[in-house]
């Protein structure tokens, strides 16, 4: 084939366009990072007690108080929001690419439900009182069990079987969670279970960051390895396989990655919906819809979304009652987006 006889004009035109595209991409990435830094700054300063930079330079007592709030309360909360939001965004992008289904999200495979069940078990049996990390640890176990079940059930049947297995396992895990709620030994336990299920970043310390962080990092790394295969999968499974993609391996990477990362995240913060669903949709048109190119932008967007939602819960006080839970906040804000997605799909359908 005459590969070397390309018209020079074509190559030059394509090169010009590529350079313009790259500029645009870098600008977009830069804006996202600036946004993240701004949000991070706000997140560190805002809350029940507003910190002002001047306080750190004030008298000994004020400065120590300010440092304490910043380092032991705000900073771990910020780090956790970035880790959890980022991994939710990444996992949403990977799962939507894997299933080629724009409605896929981390909750789809039963991982969130499994983590919820594990954590709720720990609250139910009062283990949370005996040692602090019991809830997240059991949450992780729950996520692992759910993922093993999903994988065992959906194995070898293609993506559709995997989704169906995920739905079935989610159903089972939620049923067990509600059973625990139903049989809760006392109103206080029921209250604790419910408030955990709502999902929150409040009152999280470095313990939780160190517990979930490693799993989130390893899981995200596994998910990030699927990029090239996700691209090939946009041609369908037959063509992807013909291009040398090992479907078993991609499924495994995406599933194990989601379990580790989202399982650990859910185990610490409770279920936080919609971030993983929305983040890839926001970025997709900007990167030309290619699954691999969505991964990092979606990670950053997920982190920014969760951070913004967390700031929102601190700023919006209804004037009564406790602080809004971030899981409730993302659901309230995310549902209209879901409606929009449905309306758009209906318009696109013949």
């Amino acid at each position, binding site marked *: *084939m005459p590969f070397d006889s*390309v018209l020079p004009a*074509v190559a030059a035109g394509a090169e010009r366009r590529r350079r313009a595209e790259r500029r645009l991409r870098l600008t977009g990435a830069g804006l996202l990072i600036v946004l993240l830094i701004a949000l991070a700054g706000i997140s560190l300063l805002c809350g029940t007690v507003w910190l002002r930079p001047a306080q750190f330079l004030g008298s000994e007592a004020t400065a120590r108080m300010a440092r304490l709030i910043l380092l032991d309360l705000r900073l771990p909360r910020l780090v956790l929001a970035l880790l959890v939001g980022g991994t939710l965004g990444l996992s949403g992008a990977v799962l939507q690419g894997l299933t080629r289904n724009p409605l896929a999200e981390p909750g789809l495979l039963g991982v969130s439900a499994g983590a919820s069940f594990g954590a709720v078990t720990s609250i139910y049996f009062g283990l949370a009182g005996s040692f602090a990390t019991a809830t997240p640890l059991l949450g992780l176990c729950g996520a692992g069990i759910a993922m093993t079940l999903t994988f065992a059930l959906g194995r070898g049947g293609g993506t559709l079987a995997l989704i169906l297995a995920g739905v079935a396992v989610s159903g089972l895990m939620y049923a067990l969670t509600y059973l625990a709620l139903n049989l809760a030994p006392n109103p206080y336990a029921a209250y604790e279970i419910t408030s955990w299920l709502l999902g929150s970043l409040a009152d999280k310390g470095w313990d939780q960051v160190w517990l979930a962080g490693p799993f989130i990092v390893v899981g995200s790394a596994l998910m990030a390895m699927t990029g*090239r295969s996700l691209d090939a999968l946009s041609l369908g499974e037959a063509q992807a396989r013909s291009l*040398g993609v090992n479907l078993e391996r991609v499924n495994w990477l995406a599933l194990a990655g989601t379990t580790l990362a989202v399982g650990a995240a859910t185990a610490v913060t409770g279920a936080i919906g919609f971030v993983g669903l929305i983040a890839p949709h926001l970025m997709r048109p900007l990167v030309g819809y290619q699954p691999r190119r969505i991964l990092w932008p979606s990670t950053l967007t997920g982190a920014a979304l969760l951070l913004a939602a967390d700031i929102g819960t601190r700023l919006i006080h209804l004037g009564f009652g406790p602080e809004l839970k971030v899981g409730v906040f993302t659901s309230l804000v995310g549902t209209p987006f879901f409606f929009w997605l449905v309306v758009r799909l209906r318009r696109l359908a013949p």
Partner: protein
Amino acid sequence: MTSLTARKLTVIRHDRHILQGVSLEATDSEFVAVIGPNGAGKSTLLSVLAGLLAPSDGLVTLDGAPLKLLGGTALARRRAYLPQNPRCEWPISVERLVALGLTPVLPAFGGLSEPFRSRVDAVLALCDLLPKRMQPSTTLSGGELARAMLARAMVGDPDILIVDEPTTGLDPRHALEAAARLRALAQSGKLVIAAIHDLTLVARYSTRIIALEAGRLVCEGPTESTLTSELVHRVFDVEACVSRTPGGALVDYLPASPHPNSR
């Protein structure tokens, strides 16, 4: 030199014989057309030859080495495969769709380097897709999408091209073009294996035919001497007329034993 050999291929699915003892050998510069009625096992045969489906029994070898011993990526570098009605699930641009054909030769991370980019440009030019390169592939017409998919298969410069029904759903001009492109690829030294229903296209463009019926190979040989009225009658159960005119061969058919009242 490329040689793809299948020995006694048998595929059994749900206790049904999809393929039974099919053997064949194909070498470079051939355009092999696989013909046969619906359900004869054409797609299954192509999947097995492409190494995507393991036969229940039998062996496919590429240059003497069994396919299953070649790794997925190594095999993907040597043969391209297009299923029936290939489509793209995301509205990615034609240029990027074509670049997906380079998946087996690209590293796990990073973008396209310069030689690969010019390869994409060259294939786009070859398939008349340059004006469409930025268009979302989901908005292409059937003929354009078929061209884009063929470009996707050609961009990796494979030795073997296995295509399942490349002309189905195309209008006459695009069908002719598609078949002519496959013929041109064969003439440039590739091995092309395609399942095709349009027998006129088979007669004009293929160099060899393989006829399947109920999973068995009933006939094979050079198109010129093998594709006859008798063969078409036998395989498809229709009265056929194969005429070789200076303008190109023509195959026409009528129902085999017409009901007395239908005339």
